[in-house]
């Protein structure tokens, strides 16, 4: 299992292929890629702040919990911080398992926890200035199902 927290851009496809190449025994690989969205047709930039040290520990703990709950062959989390351009990948979760249900469940679990429990804060840089992204109630509610 691997956690990568980095400022530099990453290639989601290359990350998926690299991950899938190391999961002998797995029949299922689920990935989630978060992209910088455009707002109303105009690509926004994004600035992501995080809490070095806590970030890595928090994500590693989520992965340990996922590995305890589902039969996983491997898992990977990549998350960027700093300045991101519109359309760029923000982060990626990849999970491999023998059958698909485990990989889907673990990927959703990791995403729900990353959204609300990993110390990242997003600021959208739009034409009208910078705005901190507000946490969504749905994201907090999503945690209740686990």
């Amino acid at each position, binding site marked *: 299992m691997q956690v990568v927290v980095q400022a530099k851009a990453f290639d989601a496809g290359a990350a998926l292929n690299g991950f899938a190449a190391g999961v002998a025994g797995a029949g299922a690989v689920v990935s989630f890629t*978060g992209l910088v969205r455009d707002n109303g047709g105009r690509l926004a930039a994004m600035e992501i*702040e*995080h*809490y070095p*040290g*806590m970030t890595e*520990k*928090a994500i590693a703990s989520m992965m340990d919990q996922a590995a305890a709950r589902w039969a996983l062959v491997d898992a990977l989390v990549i*998350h960027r911080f700093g300045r991101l351009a519109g359309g760029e990948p*923000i*982060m990626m979760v990849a999970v491999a398992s023998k059958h698909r249900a485990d990989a889907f469940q673990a990927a959703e679990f990791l*995403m729900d926890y*990353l*959204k*609300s*429990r*990993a*110390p*990242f*804060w*997003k*600021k959208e840089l739009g034409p009208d200035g910078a705005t*901190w*992204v*507000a*946490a969504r109630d749905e994201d*907090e509610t999503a945690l209740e199902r686990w």
Partner: protein
Amino acid sequence: MKLEVIYFAWVRERIGLPRELIETRAQTVADLVTELRARDESYDLAFADLASLRVALDQELGSFDAPLAGVREVAFFPPMTGG
């Protein structure tokens, strides 16, 4: 007791600095918040709505009534928006 106090996102922006070393006798996070709010208006404003804030003690999420005994690093920040 010496505490490293760290601020993130709009908490950092309102207070105007990312971190500071504080000498305090606060027993709990809530005590520390009271102490900080008394400093000046920017602190008072940053901590005006505790429901919109989260706190981490030594890099673990905690609560505002948690004791500070043995803690070295306290971080204040808004709800996280990762992923």
